[in-house]
């Protein structure tokens, strides 16, 4: 579990500050867990993910498997962690397949795991379509497939479920579970707190600070929900989605 402190951390962020966006964040994730990043809009979730991915300069330190990211060669970074942006702008009409194959750049091969990644995200029918001619949700799945193709043990996904239909959202969560069972660590930001409550652990961001970290039940307390999100929580019967 992410709350224990094993000898090797998949990701360790210490005292990370990006002026005006996040402030003195400490976060430590164990291997093999799905950790949700929750918080209101503008609370610093995307920034924290960028910092975790080593894409945004921040004070403090970021370690992957106990090694400072800054000391890793670019190619090794590409093999160690995958980052999925919230949205992507595609100016050029690369085919879905060739975008997914870009995930293999750091490995120096073009074919390994591409078909599997395309199948895992249900993109088989779109494989030869240009990415600038598919829908937002489909594009999101292409980026996920590319992240999958990297086979990186640390997966950082920024709102991967935001534009997905219920079925593909469930499939992505199942995929995350499979990856975690195989030893990968997934840190993903989520808006839907009902989805978040089913993850292994949660990190709650509030105005650039990490307010709480731990199992969902200990993070999503009625007090925290009221204070951070300004909502009241109540259990009631509703729709439940499952894969057939």
């Amino acid at each position, binding site marked *: 579990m992410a709350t224990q402190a094993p000898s090797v951390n998949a990701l360790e962020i210490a005292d990370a500050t990006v002026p005006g966006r996040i402030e003195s964040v400490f976060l430590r994730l164990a291997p093999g867990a799905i950790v949700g990043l929750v918080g209101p809009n503008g609370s610093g979730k995307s920034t924290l993910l*960028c910092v975790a*991915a*080593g*894409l945004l300069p921040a004070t403090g330190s970021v370690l992957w498997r106990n090694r400072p990211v800054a000391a890793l060669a*670019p*190619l*090794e*970074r*590409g*093999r160690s*962690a*995958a*980052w999925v*942006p919230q949205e*992507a*702008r*595609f*100016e*050029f*009409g*690369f*085919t879905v397949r*060739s*975008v997914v194959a*870009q*995930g293999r*750049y*750091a490995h120096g091969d073009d074919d390994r795991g591409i078909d599997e990644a395309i199948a895992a995200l249900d993109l088989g029918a779109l494989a*030869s379509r240009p990415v600038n001619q598919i829908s937002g949700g489909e594009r999101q799945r292409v980026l996920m497939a*590319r992240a999958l193709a*990297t086979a990186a043990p640390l997966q950082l996904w920024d709102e991967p479920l935001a534009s997905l239909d219920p079925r593909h959202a469930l499939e992505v969560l199942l995929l995350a579970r499979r990856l975690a069972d195989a030893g990968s660590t997934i840190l993903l930001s989520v808006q839907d707190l009902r989805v978040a409550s089913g993850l292994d652990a949660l990190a709650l961001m509030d105005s650039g600070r990490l307010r709480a970290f731990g199992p969902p039940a200990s993070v999503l307390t009625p007090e925290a929900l009221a204070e951070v999100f300004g909502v009241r929580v109540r259990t009631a019967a509703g729709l439940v989605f499952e894969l057939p």
Partner: protein
Amino acid sequence: MILPARYARFALPGAVLLLAAMAAFSLATGDVRLGPERIWAGLLHRDAMASTVIWQIRLPRMAVGVMVGAALAAAGLIMQAYFRNSLASPDLLGVSTGGAAGAAVAIASGWAAVSLWSLPAAALVGSFAAVGAVIALARRGASTERLLLAGVALNALLGAVTAYILSRYTDLYQRNAQILFWLMGGLEDRMGMHVMIGLPIPLAALALWPLGRPMDLLSLGEQEAQSLGIDVRRLRRRLIAIAAVLTATATAIAGTVGFVGLVVPHILRLLVGPEHRRLVPLALVGGPVFVLGCDLAGRLAGGLRLGIVTALIGGPFFLWLLRRHQ
């Protein structure tokens, strides 16, 4: 994509054949018409007259045309990937104008007469200054509007530098004529010397050759590329240096030739898709095909300068692109 994937691999051999045909045509056409046998005899110095025409006039002209075409097409391709915008190109962004302004300063001040290399060096400085300004004004991943506005502003500014020089030194007619040459762009009276000055072009092309795949990743976003294992800062520095050297050298040997960097990459992308591993070699071959074709068209039309022909073709093409872009 117009060509089905299975035919795309024939695009490069096809372009090479087309280039060979254009080159032969270019060597055959002129005041003295030469057939294949006489071209061959001239190349081997077996026919004194043909030999002079070929080696002194047509071969340098063709070689400079090939280098300029390859340089401008490749520079356009680089800038489009760098700015993630398919409307970026050396002339629209003011990089060619910067090179021309640098060349104009060198000619007017008399530096150009000091050494063979001072003119290309001045063009290089002008191009680099323009590149630096575009980067500062538009930032990477810039929207089409910002990028084109930055280009408009720079073209106006650098054009004013050239215009000032032209008006300031009206007494030196010969120098002004020389400056006007750069501004209109052309392949007339090219000599072995110009081929020599153009040598940085094949070197820069060689440096560009292996960067196709990294360019693919960069063209989809800076952070994405970095997360996938690209050293983005290093790649961008290399790309912009290569693009500036290509544009500046092309400008130094043939003046400002517009629209090649816009038209050629676009046509190639329509033919074989957006992957730069394919586009880099194709641009290096397709650029020369376009330039030699325009040069031939200009010669057959009674001596239109190259810059005029490329603009006559490129202008309407650009308008069509803008319409299609919406």
